[in-house]
């Protein structure tokens, strides 16, 4: 555990630098001069270059790179925050945002949209709806049984996740193998290329709102990490707080699926990195997770769009880079989950 404030400040600065840097990076070569010219052109109207050239730059900076950067920041932080909240709430550092089936449900919804509606809007609506539906199902299943609430929720999540994974397989099986199936497969690998400015605006607001709601509940997350009974004896309305936490985390994860498809490992690995740096106190851990998650996904997306002429699906990159890192984290975390 390090001193908290300098760490958070350093990560914030890194994120700012990375965001600016990402604006300059891309397959289309743009120099710092171009950027200066473009800035002066857009603020003062001074033509630093030809009008058409500026139009292209505007296109590249504002319509292509900016939404991706903001999208990466949003998706990365949303996944990390909901992962952190889940890990605290379920007192289990191996839990990820998909625990209650949100990713499986959203995948199924998206596949359904691709096969039966053939429109991007429907894909997004159904992904969101089924993501939330899968979590609701796991919560209903947990109600069927008495006993340890947390355990029942986790079991409910496993059942719900398996159910929707099976449904997804059925949809894949039924999909037209020429266009729809490959589209589903690629979509499931995740990526930010479909993100447009409009979509970003609609989706960012609920994500930011959920994140803000989670931030206000961080002291309760700490208490919930002590176990249900202890939390209750401390005066926490466990049922209510958990329902709010799960709702916010689910909303955020489902929206990331709408934005970028299935992106794994971020919600599992980033909370660990954050905890290693500043400790488990959710009051500071949640914002730190958000920053690190944003930075992580931003860098991954830069890799995804820079390395080859073809884009590497983002979900593959986050997994490939996340797994070795996770092994490293485990090695350092032998003493307990610090």
């Amino acid at each position, binding site marked *: 555990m390090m001193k908290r404030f300098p760490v958070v400040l350093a990560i914030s600065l890194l994120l700012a630098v990375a965001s600016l840097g990402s604006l300059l990076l891309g397959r289309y070569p743009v120099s710092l001069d171009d950027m200066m010219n473009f800035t002066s052109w857009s603020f003062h109207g001074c033509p630093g270059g030809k009008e058409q050239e500026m*139009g292209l730059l505007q296109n590249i900076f504002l319509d292509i790179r900016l939404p991706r950067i903001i999208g990466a920041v949003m998706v990365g932080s949303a996944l990390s925050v909901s992962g952190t909240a889940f890990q605290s709430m379920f007192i289990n550092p191996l839990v990820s945002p998909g625990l209650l089936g949100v990713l499986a449900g959203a995948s199924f919804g998206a596949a359904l949209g691709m096969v039966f509606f053939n*429109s991007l809007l429907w894909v997004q609506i159904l992904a969101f709806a089924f993501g939330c539906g899968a979590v609701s199902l796991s919560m209903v299943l947990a109600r069927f049984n008495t006993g340890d609430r947390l355990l029942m929720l986790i079991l409910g999540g496993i059942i719900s996740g398996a159910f929707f994974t099976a449904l997804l397989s059925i949809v894949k099986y039924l999909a037209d*193998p020429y266009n729809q199936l490959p589209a589903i497969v690629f979509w499931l690998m995740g990526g930010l290329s*479909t993100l447009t*400015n409009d979509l970003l605006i609609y989706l960012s607001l609920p994500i930011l709102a959920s994140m803000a709601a989670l931030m206000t509940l961080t002291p309760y997350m700490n208490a919930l990490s002590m176990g249900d009974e202890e939390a209750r004896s401390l005066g926490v309305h466990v049922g209510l707080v958990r329902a709010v936490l799960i709702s916010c985390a689910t909303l955020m994860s489902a929206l990331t699926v709408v934005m970028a498809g299935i992106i794994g490992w971020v919600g599992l690995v980033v909370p660990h990195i954050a905890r290693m740096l500043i400790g488990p106190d959710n009051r500071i851990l949640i914002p730190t997770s958000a920053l690190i998650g944003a930075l992580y996904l931003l860098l991954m997306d830069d890799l995804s769009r820079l390395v080859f002429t073809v*884009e590497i699906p983002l979900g593959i990159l986050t997994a490939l880079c996340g797994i070795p890192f996770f092994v490293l984290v485990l090695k350092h975390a032998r003493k307990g989950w610090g």
Partner: protein
Amino acid sequence: MTYNTRNRLRILPMTVLLSFFFLHGHSLARDIVDMAGRMVTVPEKIKKIYGTSPPATNLICAVAPEKLAGLNTPIRDAEKKFTDPILLKLPVVGGWFGQGQTPNMESLLAVHPDLILAWQSKQSMKNTDIEKVLKPLNAPLVFVVLDHVKDYPAVFRFMGMLLEEEKQTEALARYAEKTLSDMKSVRAAVPEKKRVTVYYAENDDGLSTECEGSMHAELIPLCSGVNVHTCMAKDGYGMDKVSMEQVILYDPQVIVTHSVPFYTGLFADKRWKSIRAVRDKRVYLIPREPMNWFDRPPSFMRLIGARWLAHNFYPDVYPWNADEETQAFYSLFLDRPLAKAELREIFEP
């Protein structure tokens, strides 16, 4: 296998068959040599034939739909309208084409195929594997070789010989030859410097594409277009993801796509507006009914697809009458004469 030996093999079946006709007259079975060079004994009269994958099945549909035993995949709703009604009644028995819908042996037996037609390609299963799997069916297995558009004339003639439908297949083969010779003359008429650069946009985001050598984009070079995505196709699957900026860098003169959502949203999307093809409004939506004219599945529809595409690439060099040509093609290949209104449906999203 070199190009030459393969060509020789394609002539072989004909000669072998002819000699058998002279020797045996009308017997209950005849021996033929299939396009993979294997000697196969097939029934004198073939009543039911099953294709192991869509390319094979499509061939049967074009030559003798009434003899098809079963389908590989369900017919989509949009497809139904332009599909021969005979096919709509057929059971879906699945096929071997790299997807999950592997047939149940018993349902295959239940449709009683007396001949199995398999597509031999680099991507599909090896010959011996297919033979092993299909052994329980106890029906002769015949291979067709169909890797490129230029293989169609030979394939059609082989099918005609096999199913004794030479009259029909000769017309199909002639059509294919006409398409190929047309494309050759386009190539001769357009100097290399004047050839259009083409981006093939797949997927609803338009950001998947095919390498220039890919079988999925074979029509682009055939129609003398230059595929901007220069790379070697690694596998038959294709659909390389590319970034928006890569497309801007490619700056193609023409975009072809099969995705309706992409096509309809494209001109309103700010990210695409600086691309030459979008500025010049040279984005073409590939007709898709009942089968794609360009790719996925790669079928004989490409024979008309090539003419349509060549016309869009070089309207001055290659004029064509869209309505007339389409009607002729659908009558000839799909046995489905089109009304005027239906023509619009084919060309519009």
